[in-house]
């Protein structure tokens, strides 16, 4: 018997780590990965809630999120390639032409 | 009431059509543009004179009202009306517009078409302000008027024109946007934007504003007007705007735009918020008096002739505000009269300063000196106008000042005593500057060959001088027509002394009076618990 709380706390921790990673990492790809991490945390919460309430739609949600993540991955990596090609750098801090 | 048909609408929109017609002319048809603009403005002036025929003397209410529904929700109506006070302000506007057009005849040489379009649009806005009886409509014209004025300053002005134009707009807007909040607040309390209706509600006691609410509303309105007047210490836009504006702009600005502020005080602040007005009267009067003295002193030491005239406006308008906030019939009539007189005499001063500028392209007093020798006629006109501005009896400036001071003295002799010192100071700055500009030997060689007034200029100035003199002698012609309206304003300040009415508020009253007190978040917090 694993209480739902445990899952939820884990989810929160993973989400927090994702946020931290997003803010902390410099490599665009790594940052993108931290987004995936956050989405995974969300998914965990969905499944946990779904299970706790005995409702199925939470799981359906997770499927949608995964699909969206896939789509985002395609576009996101496209953008990353574009950036990398134009600037020869993956450091997000170097991409600051637009500012102030 | 004699039927005036849609005279008021015609008055507002005729110049707009004129402006539209101008738009169809070619850019370089300067001659036709000028003639058409002038004709339009003269016809408009004649229209406005018709008002005299239709307005019943001795009636203080609104006449020639026009009413049409415009927007259903919120109920905004196209409601126009004229009373004795607005009557002459409208005529002043329509009178100064052709004068301004004439004054710009030769001095405006680039983007001529736009210039006259702007001037006519300005007239639309100003006339609209004076004739609107719907708060919303009033605000609309009030704002719309800003743009042509800003353009007049910004495009055809002098060196720092852009700074001045922006400053003018921002200053005015800062006040008016709060007035908009006030208008909406008032609407919330009353459910209408219609001035007579609101007046009726408040005056009959059917609706009583809580003191705090009334004061806040008063301030919201007053601030907008005080900036426009301009009341010390909100005046610093004025010198800049005046100095940088082209002559026509200055004439219209000083002549009518400033009056919109004092008109607003008479039309809105006093009748709608009498208790707050009374409470604030002391402060307002102090500011007005400071304005009178301060404006005069600062005017006295200006090295720039146009700035001097601008500061003198601060001083003169201080009288008007003082007259209004003395709450005396006499002083109020004086205030209205002073508005008109100031429009003419300061307008004329700006015209003259503009003529000097046309010749020498400077406003610096030190650049002039001894001009009476090459241009005696201009000097004579200048003196005449200066005298009217400093309140010489039998010229127009005296009547207003005198009535204001007299009326004020009746209730607050100290105010009047302080304010009357402005009479001394106005003589100081006007005569001193006059001396430096016109008297003495010619100090600069290039001034020696300056031409005297041209025929066009003579006509302009003679007209202004004639009106000045006529107003100075035949003042009852004016006072008869607005005396009743001034009395009405004072009557509108009366409120029934029925506390039980105030205690049983109708629905909107609670809204208005509870106003800020109840904050929604506490509610939600309570529920959340």
């Amino acid at each position, binding site marked *: 018997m694993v209480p739902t709380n445990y899952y939820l706390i884990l989810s929160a921790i993973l989400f927090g780590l994702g946020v931290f990673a997003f803010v902390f990492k410099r490599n665009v790809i790594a940052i993108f990965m931290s987004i995936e991490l956050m989405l995974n945390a969300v998914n965990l919460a*969905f499944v946990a809630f779904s299970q706790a309430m005995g409702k199925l739609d939470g799981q359906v949600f997770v499927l949608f999120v995964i699909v969206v993540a896939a789509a985002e991955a395609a576009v996101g990596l496209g953008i990353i390639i*574009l950036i990398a090609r134009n600037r020869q750098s993956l450091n997000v801090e170097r991409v600051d032409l637009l500012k102030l | 009431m004699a039927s005036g048909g849609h005279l008021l609408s015609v008055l507002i929109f005729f110049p707009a059509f004129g402006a539209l017609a101008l738009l169809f002319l070619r850019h370089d048809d300067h001659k036709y543009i000028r003639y058409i603009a002038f004709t339009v403005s003269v016809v408009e002036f004649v229209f406005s004179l018709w008002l005299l025929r239709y307005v019943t003397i001795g009636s203080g209410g609104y006449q020639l009202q026009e009413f049409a529904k415009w927007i259903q929700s919120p109920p905004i109506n196209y409601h126009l009306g004229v009373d004795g006070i607005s009557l002459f302000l409208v005529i002043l506007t329509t009178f100064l517009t052709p004068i301004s057009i004439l004054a710009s005849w030769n001095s405006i040489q680039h983007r001529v078409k736009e210039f006259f379009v702007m001037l006519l649009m300005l007239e639309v806005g100003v006339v609209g302000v004076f004739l609107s009886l719907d708060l919303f409509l009033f605000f609309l014209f009030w704002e719309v008027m800003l743009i042509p004025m800003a353009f007049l300053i910004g495009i055809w002005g002098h060196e720092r024109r852009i700074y001045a134009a922006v400053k003018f707009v921002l200053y005015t807007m800062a006040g008016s946007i709060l007035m908009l*909040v006030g208008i909406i607040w008032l609407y919330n309390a009353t459910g209408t934007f219609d001035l007579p209706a609101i007046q009726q509600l408040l005056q009959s006691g059917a609706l009583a504003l809580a003191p705090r609410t009334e004061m806040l509303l008063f301030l919201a309105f007053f601030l907008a007007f005080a900036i426009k007047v301009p009341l010390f210490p909100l005046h610093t836009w004025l010198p800049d705007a005046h100095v940088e504006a082209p002559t026509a702009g200055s004439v219209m600005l000083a002549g009518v735009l400033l009056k919109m502020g004092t008109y607003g005080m008479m039309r809105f602040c006093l009748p709608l918020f009498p208790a707050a007005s009374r409470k604030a009267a002391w402060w307002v009067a102090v500011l007005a008096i400071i304005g009178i003295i301060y404006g005069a002193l600062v005017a006295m030491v200006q090295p720039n002739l146009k700035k001097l005239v601008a500061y003198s406006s601060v001083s003169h308008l201080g009288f008007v505000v003082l007259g209004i906030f003395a709450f005396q019939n006499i002083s109020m009539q004086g205030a209205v009269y002073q508005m008109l007189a100031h429009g003419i005499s300061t307008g004329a001063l700006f015209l003259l300063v503009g003529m000097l500028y046309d010749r020498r392209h400077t406003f610096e007093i030190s650049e002039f000196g001894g001009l009476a020798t090459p241009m005696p006629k201009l000097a004579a006109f200048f003196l005449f106008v200066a005298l009217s501005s400093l309140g010489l009896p039998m010229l127009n400036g005296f009547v207003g000042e005198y009535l204001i001071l007299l009326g004020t003295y009746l209730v607050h002799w100290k105010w009047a005593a302080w304010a009357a010192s402005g009479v001394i100071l106005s003589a100081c700055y006007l005569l001193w500057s006059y001396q430096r500009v016109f008297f003495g030997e010619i100090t600069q060689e290039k001034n020696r060959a300056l031409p005297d007034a041209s025929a066009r200029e003579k006509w302009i100035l003679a007209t202004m001088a004639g009106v000045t003199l006529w107003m100075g002698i035949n003042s009852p012609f004016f006072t008869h027509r607005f005396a009743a309206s001034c009395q009405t304003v004072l009557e509108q300040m009366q409120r029934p002394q029925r506390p039980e009415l105030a205690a049983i508020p109708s629905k909107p009253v609670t809204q208005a009076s509870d106003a800020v007190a109840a904050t929604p978040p506490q509610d*939600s917090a309570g529920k959340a618990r």
Partner: protein
Amino acid sequence: MIPRPEDLLRVLPELVWCGFGVLLMLVQPFIRNRYVLASLALSGATLGTLAAFISAMNAGSGFHGLIESDGFSLFFHLLVGLVASLVILTAGSYLHRESLESAEFYALLLFATAGMGVLASAQELLTAFIGLELSSISSYVLAGYRRDSLKSGESAMKYFLLGSFATAFFLYGVAMVYGVTGTTNLEIMAAADTSSNLLRLGLALILVGLGFKVAAAPFQVWTPDVYEGAPTPVTALFSAGPKAAAFALLLRIFATVHAATEFWFWAFWALAVFTMFAGNLGALVQSNVKRMLAYSSIAHAGYILVAFAAVTFMQKDPDTGAAPAYAAILFYLLSYALVKVGAFAIVSELGGKGEKHLSLDDYAGLAQRQPFAAATLSLFLLSLLGLPVTAGFFGKFYIFKAAVNSHLIWLAVLMAINSVLGAYYYLRVIVVMYMREPSAETAASAPARFPIPVNIVLWITALGTIYLGLFPNHVLNNVLQQTLISGGRIH
């Protein structure tokens, strides 16, 4: 599992938009004529917009309550459809000038529009999420559409990264709300237990996500960069479309879920104040017109948020309900969309090849070189400033009214202060156009004649701005309040 026909009718606009998007992709290998492609896209956008009327005729909820076709959704469909059509008209010459493929551009635009349409009618958070992603992902690509431009790529990257980041917050919020209520359907959620902290937190996170989309401070940081870097017609779309759609969703959540209404009041208050100041103060110091308009759109989001704050209070009014405040929001969005699209259309044309002429100095003396452009841009700026006889004035007026009605006097006063701040930088552009002489270089460059489609856009937006400024009631009463109240969905 074939859906019922009326369900399909209720999502007809989205179907049309997506259909035309697919069509454009299909014909792209065969048709290279940009006019044909543009016409196709335009007809797609317009047809989809018109289809909104059909879906409105079949009012009701569809797909098991996932979407709702009502007056509210009709309004937003028309709005985003109109924006899309105008952007297509604007984009033609831009794409040609920058030698960009038009078919893909239009297709993405139509997909994005469809996503916004979904957002507007979504009655359920998952559907809303998909709609949000559909429009967002299209937007990311559109932002980076000028591949050879560093700025465009950077814009896409920032938009993408931060957008996804915010989406994660949104989703997490949805998860929590789901965890409390067991549903993502807003209707059912309306009956939720409002004492739950988790619900509170979930709604807070949803607000974070949507706040990001509408560019509310402090989530506004991405806006200027993305707007500046994106191709200008895309910026026009961004400033009007996705923002309106996100507001639509926010409004629907806000109106349906009581809990949201109660929890969000101060949040809206704070967001409104931050946003107004962030936008206006930022815009004060900009010398790039495009970026300045980006900041200005932040400020305007702030004004709209003022109305949101007002809604809370007005809902207690038994007579009118919050309808006036809702109406104010919708009216504002409409007037704002018209103006922003028009303004960006001009900026797009004046930018020239490679978007080189975006600085304020490039606008000096524009009134003489291109009187029509200067006049319309002035009109738009005055509308943004909120001067009477323009749509923007009434937009602001209604918001003021809503705020004062709700006794949010301080908020109204802060908004007034911001209006004055805003006046400064809007005026500055007008001043430069009319009162400053152009530099020798600028004067020498021949006036770029605006292509006809752009002129059409300008006429439509300008006339619309004036029309709404003169007769706001026609729109406000006959469409907004009627549909809102009779539809019964939002009360």
